[in-house]
């Protein structure tokens, strides 16, 4: 599994697309705000983004439980294919006034920790510039 993290409008998706230029388009699948239901092979690349939306759908459930469930499903998916997670960094602004927004932010944090742990490569994107937080791009070809 690989994680690309950064603030909104920082160029995360562009980075992923550039990294996958050598892969045939038909093997690249984007999922926004939902997890795929179909099966994939090791030839495929499944790019997941908008975890906020996935979490919002289950917001009445306990924070740890949501994070665990999502992380387990993504881990399982990663055993059959190549998962790349695009994570919006939400954790560095002001604590939101709204209870739901707070929970969303906290749950995202929990989930991201789990995804980081599972990933062989974690890259932070700052306005288009990549910084490797974990792993090695050279040894971890996309």
């Amino acid at each position, binding site marked *: 599994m690989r994680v690309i993290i950064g603030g909104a409008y920082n160029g995360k998706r562009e980075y992923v697309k550039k990294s996958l230029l050598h892969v045939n388009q038909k093997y690249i699948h984007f999922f926004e705000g939902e997890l795929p239901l179909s099966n994939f092979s090791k030839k495929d690349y499944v790019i997941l983004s908008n975890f*906020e939306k996935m979490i919002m759908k289950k917001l009445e459930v306990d924070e740890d439980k949501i994070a665990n469930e999502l992380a387990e499903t993504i881990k399982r998916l990663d055993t059959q294919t190549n998962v790349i997670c695009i994570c919006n960094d939400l954790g560095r602004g002001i604590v939101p006034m709204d209870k739901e927004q707070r929970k969303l932010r906290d749950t995202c944090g929990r989930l991201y920790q789990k995804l980081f742990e599972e990933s062989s490569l974690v890259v932070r994107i700052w306005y288009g510039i990549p910084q490797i937080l974990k792993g090695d791009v050279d040894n971890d070809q996309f």
Partner: protein
Amino acid sequence: MTIIFITGGVRSGKSAYAEKYAIELYKKYQRSSLYYLASGVAFDEEMLKRIERHKEDRSKSNVQWKTIEVQDDFPVEMLDFNQCDVVVWDCITTWVTNVLYKTEQYNIQERQTKIVDYLNRFKSFITQWNDKHSIIIIVSNEVLDEPKSNFEEVDLFRKILGELHQWLVSVCDEAYEMDYSITKRWK
């Protein structure tokens, strides 16, 4: 000649860093003028104090700053910057906010055109000064590391600012992120 981009959170010390760096370069390369482009608008007491504090800091320094106010539109003096100048623009976040505010009166399509026009002119200024060998230091804020806002206007602001930052980072020679006086150099 050189474009330097500095971002950071509030009170991270980015203005102080930018000013110090500007003076350093001004002396090192024996430039003739040191310009400060200010985008802050004194819309309340606190903002007025903030601006006053920045002005006072600059007046205390042993070099002469020339201040130009750039709230939204570009004053003609900006065309005169040349190879002998060092320019600090503090800050782009405020300038973008002002541009959004200024164009609020138009309908969506007209507004879009106006905003794009402002951004293109901004970019062409930066490119022109750079071609004329000025040293340019651009200061901005980190505001994109929080949940998406429920307000369309805020998201529009974040999109414009994020894309502008990406552009600046791609054209600049040096890029720094400040985190409470710890400076990370990205480029």
